């Protein structure tokens, strides 16, 4: 039986961590994720978990401690945002290449500079090719649910990759909303115990972790990481299926909202997807066939599935909450368009960079995107595929 509660996104993530009761949590505070280790440290002090909480002196050390703990055979978790993730960067690659299923709660925030503590996805996009599984969460409920599924996905022996659960800083991390929680005992049963096959503290099987990997091996090891990432897709679907059987809450690689019969659609991630749903409901009442594809699994990128789901549309807008500053579109746009090209699905697609540095994204702005898509359908023309949404411009 689910428990009706109201929690912020950070409280939701911390509650999931409490119920998972990992062996080690190592973290360093940074806005807007600070509350997660803060709440967790009170759980430790109050004896609600028997986790070893390591209050490290930097995020580099937080990830290093998680790597040490996982290599030793323990379950390790951490949380961070923006520049905290930047400081972890070296160890982020070490964690994935050592095939350590660490779980990281990433509360998305703009990476400096100039200094900004508010939400965008530039932190996550900076590590998109680091070999981590990346799940995005629309609200507190999804941040909670994705965290409960994280270990089952990451620790699967066909996967063995670290995983990060993303949610929007402040917008969901600091907003109190309704949530359905699961019973502690049920969570424990679902997550299960962690028994790694190979680990440092196993005196029956001495192993080395992280030795020199020269020309004759590194390439093959990278190919194995890539294989694991491909395998993660099926594992995510399997774990999500079991999660649905348990809680009744459905999760796939992405959510299709009124997409089946849609003519125009938006592709986006995290909290903006919720605002988009509200706009779609309004537009549908006016007879506009608008839809949404909300990506949940960003890494591995479900290119084939995304291409198929978008193939029937007359025009698509991909919303990127991070600018790649490359004169060729945002990361999500590139992923979607290259997937469409490879799958030979020809649909007019435009890119919008939006919400940078916490700029609020309103229903009115989302409505203008659908209006733009209508215009593309009507005229068959795209003047400029690389656009901004919500950017203040100088009056001419």
């Amino acid at each position, binding site marked *: 039986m689910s428990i009706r509660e*109201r929690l912020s996104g950070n409280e939701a993530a911390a509650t999931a961590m409490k119920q998972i009761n990992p062996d080690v949590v190592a973290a360093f505070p940074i806005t807007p994720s600070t509350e997660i280790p803060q709440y967790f440290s009170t759980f430790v002090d109050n004896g609600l978990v028997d986790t070893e909480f390591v209050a490290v002196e930097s995020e580099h050390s937080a990830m290093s401690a998680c790597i040490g703990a996982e290599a030793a055979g323990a379950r390790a978790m951490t949380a961070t945002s923006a520049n905290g993730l930047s400081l972890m960067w070296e160890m982020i690659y070490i964690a994935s290449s050592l095939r350590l299923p660490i779980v990281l709660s990433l509360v998305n925030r703009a990476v400096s500079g100039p200094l900004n*503590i*508010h939400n965008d996805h530039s932190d996550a996009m900076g590590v998109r090719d680091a070999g981590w599984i990346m799940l995005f969460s*629309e*609200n507190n409920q999804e941040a909670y649910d994705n965290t409960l599924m994280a270990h089952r996905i990451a620790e699967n022996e066909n996967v063995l990759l670290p995983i990060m659960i993303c949610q*929007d800083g*402040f*917008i*969901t991390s*600091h*907003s*109190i*909303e*309704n949530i359905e929680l699961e019973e502690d005992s049920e969570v424990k049963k679902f997550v299960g115990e962690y028994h790694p096959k190979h680990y440092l503290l196993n005196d029956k099987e001495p192993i080395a972790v992280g030795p020199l990997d020269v020309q004759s091996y590194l390439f093959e090891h990278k190919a194995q990481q890539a294989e694991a990432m491909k395998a993660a897709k099926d594992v995510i679907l399997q774990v999500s299926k079991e999660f649905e059987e348990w809680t009744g809450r459905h999760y796939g690689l992405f959510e299709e909202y009124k997409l089946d019969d849609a003519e125009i659609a938006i592709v986006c991630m995290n*909290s*903006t997807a*919720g*605002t988009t*749903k*509200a706009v779609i409901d309004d537009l549908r009442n006016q007879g506009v066939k608008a839809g949404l594809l909300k990506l949940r699994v960003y890494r591995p990128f479900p290119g084939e599935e995304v291409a198929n789901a978008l193939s029937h549309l007359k025009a698509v807008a991909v919303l990127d909450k991070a600018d790649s500053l490359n004169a060729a579109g945002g990361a999500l746009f590139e992923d979607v368009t290259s997937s469409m090209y490879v799958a030979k699905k020809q649909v007019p697609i435009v890119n919008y960079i939006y919400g940078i540095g916490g700029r*609020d*994204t*309103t*229903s009115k702005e989302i409505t203008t995107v659908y209006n733009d898509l209508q215009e593309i359908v009507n005229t068959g023309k795209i003047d400029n595929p690389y656009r901004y949404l919500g950017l203040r411009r100088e009056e001419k």
Partner: protein
Amino acid sequence: MEDLIEIRWHGRGGQGAKTASLLLADAAFNTGKYIQGFPEYGPERMGAPITAYNRISSKPITIHSNIYEPDYVVVVDDTLLESVPVTAGLKSSGAIVINTTKSADYLKKVLKGYDGGIYTIDARKVSMETLGKYFPNTPMLAAIVKVSKIMSDEEFINDMKGSFKHKFAKKPEVIDGNMKALEMALKEVNKIQ
């Protein structure tokens, strides 16, 4: 109740507008509603203008943006009236609730012809008489419940007992004063004609 009620709070850092929005969310949650309570985080410091928001609905809420066309506005500090556009986007079918002792003429002037309901309460008086200190957020919470009719006075008072027990678990001596502040505030709200 309407399907979706949107409320915007204006206060100054340290006056508890954010806390009040979270307590309102709590109270509405306890009556079975779907809720959102969130502050707009800026470069916050004591005394700076801050904004907080509530959405309350009988259906799940998916929208995640600030509120630009609120049904209700709560002004916790009347020194904001001349510096912050408190009635911006405020629906004329709604109302504004202000903590003030200023005259009706003054309020009508600074509210720039807002033609919805204008309500006032002397939250300082309520707070000083019941808590002995100036905490305007508790009276303002009661005032917005009274004006918006999100729930009945009785439901609200019963809910808040539980919320305060939770919120003030470490200082139970303030619970009685806060409950008295709520009860008194429910009676002290005036409508300007």
